[in-house]
């Protein structure tokens, strides 16, 4: 856009010469000019209607006519554009309303029909379909809790005990001492330290501003992570956990969030990752590659050619259950089905993402792919992504995910060479 003052300079001339400023008002104040225009130009396009300054030869009539025509075309186009924008906004609003209405209806169905009869309804076709479409936020926490279950039989009391112990520990260890640093290089002691949890809490969904110091959920997140290090001192605190706990906190009360957190982390895939069990992680990557090759052979070959191994992008995706890499609402939808289908869905989602971006990825080299996948676009079309996930078949030569994984576990040599030392 041309700056405003340029426009102003010529205004007076425009007023007097174009004759649009209205008769009997030759020295009208500047602001009346705009009022008299049929259409307010978005920039200085109207300047082409003006005659040349007096010290220059006058514009030929033909040229003036041409300019008028051009100007009118520009105005028409701008109007068309505005109309289009308005239509788009209206459509967005309608979509939004429709979506909200369908969420409302869905919430009713979940509340009145599904949840009261959970054990019988949860495996039905209809519920599975509804589940795929995303659980309404108002019942999300409840459904997650039910689906994750509580195999560990953690009670609210146990949470209180763990939390009390954590608080006791924090009180008695004023600062991380040098001795423990030096002696316990291999243990989880350092990682469970208050310092690291503190550091990470400030870096968990920073844009939401609710988990940071002084934010409403800061203490809750701190408590859950601290309680977990006392509940599972053998695992301790590992980066990535803060994101998982934060997502749970957004959907559940504190004690229930803790129960879901501990049970989620207790799943085989999460245990393998959070304990950084190398060989098991490799097995997971290898299983992922089996389905990758099966579903997206061309892209798989492209990745191989560029030596882009799955660990590069999967580590972040799996550790945080996509909560760091996908927009939060979309991540929650992934969690919905993850709670239903377990670890298999995490890898299926990964393949869905690769399928969604297949075309752009095949044009990239190693570094661009690595950059793209470790920092996904800000806007990811949810429906499209889920269509692509749905198109991923989780069978390979008649074997399901669990079978492929099991076969690879028995024969680790067939695993991916990634990360092997």
């Amino acid at each position: 856009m041309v700056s405003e003052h340029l426009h102003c300079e010529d205004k007076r001339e425009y007023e007097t010469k174009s004759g649009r400023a209205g008769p009997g008002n030759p020295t009208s104040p500047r602001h009346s000019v705009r009022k008299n225009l049929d259409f307010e130009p978005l920039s200085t396009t109207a300047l082409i209607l003006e005659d040349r300054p007096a010290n220059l030869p006058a514009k030929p009539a033909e040229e003036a006519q041409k300019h008028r025509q051009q100007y009118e075309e520009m105005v028409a186009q701008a109007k068309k554009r505005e109309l289009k924008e308005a239509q788009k906004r209206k459509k967005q609003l309608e979509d939004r309303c429709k979506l909200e209405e369908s969420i409302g209806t869905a919430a009713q169905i979940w509340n009145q029909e599904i949840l009261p009869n959970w054990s019988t309804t949860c495996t039905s076709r209809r519920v599975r379909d509804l589940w795929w479409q995303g659980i309404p936020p108002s019942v999300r926490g409840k459904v997650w809790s039910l689906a994750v279950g509580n195999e560990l039989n953690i009670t609210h009391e146990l949470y209180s005990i763990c939390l009390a112990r954590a608080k006791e520990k924090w009180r008695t260890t004023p600062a991380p001492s040098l001795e423990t640093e030096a002696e316990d290089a291999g243990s989880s002691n350092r990682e469970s330290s208050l310092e690291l949890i503190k550091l990470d809490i400030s870096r968990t969904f920073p844009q939401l501003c609710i988990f940071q110091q002084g934010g409403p959920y800061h203490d809750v997140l701190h408590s859950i992570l601290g309680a977990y290090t006392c509940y599972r001192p053998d695992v301790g605190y590992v980066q990535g956990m803060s994101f998982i706990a934060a997502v749970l906190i957004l959907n559940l009360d504190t004690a229930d969030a803790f129960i879901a957190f501990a049970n989620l982390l207790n799943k085989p895939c999460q245990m393998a990752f959070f304990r950084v069990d190398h060989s098991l992680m490799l097995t997971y990557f290898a299983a992922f590659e089996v389905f990758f090759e099966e579903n997206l052979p061309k892209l798989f070959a492209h990745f191989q050619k560029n030596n882009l191994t799955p660990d590069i992008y999967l580590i972040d995706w799996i550790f945080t259950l996509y909560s760091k890499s996908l927009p939060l609402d979309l991540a929650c939808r992934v969690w919905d089905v993850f709670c239903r289908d377990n670890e298999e869905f995490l890898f299926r989602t990964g393949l869905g993402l690769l399928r969604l971006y297949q075309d752009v990825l095949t044009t990239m080299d190693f570094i661009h792919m690595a950059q793209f996948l470790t920092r996904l676009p800000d806007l990811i079309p949810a429906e499209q992504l889920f269509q692509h996930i749905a198109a991923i078949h989780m069978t390979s030569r008649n074997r399901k995910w669990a079978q492929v994984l099991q076969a690879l576990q028995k024969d680790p040599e067939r695993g991916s060479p990634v990360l092997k030392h």
Partner: protein
Amino acid sequence: MGSDESYNFVFKVVLIGESGVGKSNLLSRFTKNEFNHDSRTTIGVEFSTRTVQLDNYAIKAQIWDTAGLERYRAITSAYYRGAVGALLVYDISKHLTYESVDRWLKELFDHADPHIVVMLVGNKRDLDTLRTVPTEEAKDFAEKRGLMFMETSALDSTNVENAFNEVLKAIHKKVASREVTRGSICAVTLSNPPSEAQEGRRNCCRST
């Protein structure tokens, strides 16, 4: 700065050091001139590139920003392979992050090319009032271990450009003296004989 797609060399550089010392912000300052007060925890590895002009060469720095967490180290150390440069970062206001430098070095030399160019970087120089690591001490340490040294501030940009450029220059010098590259565009490794240099690009990403 050359355009992204025309360059003579690709240098793989890794950023390592304890959690929270500012690795990701050093990188974003260098590649995007951005600093994020509330940056997110790095999990695994993230990437960025920038092409710089050194002498008459366009050098594309391919920077691998690794997670600092101890527990991840087993994973991230695999990413040192093929790196020709490293910035080992500590926080001048947190002595513990400096004390662990030795461990990081060991990890680095265990997995990376022995000829790798390493710079010890004391970040957060803007926090001088909270300093717990004296400059001289770190400088002496770096000298003893044959490392380059610089204090930086990703927050106010002090020395960030310098630190990366000095490392890239030093790599370039090594590369030029060894003549390990062929062709106009090639990722380089420092120890390979010339015949293998063409393979450089692959080596730089392969973990086996």
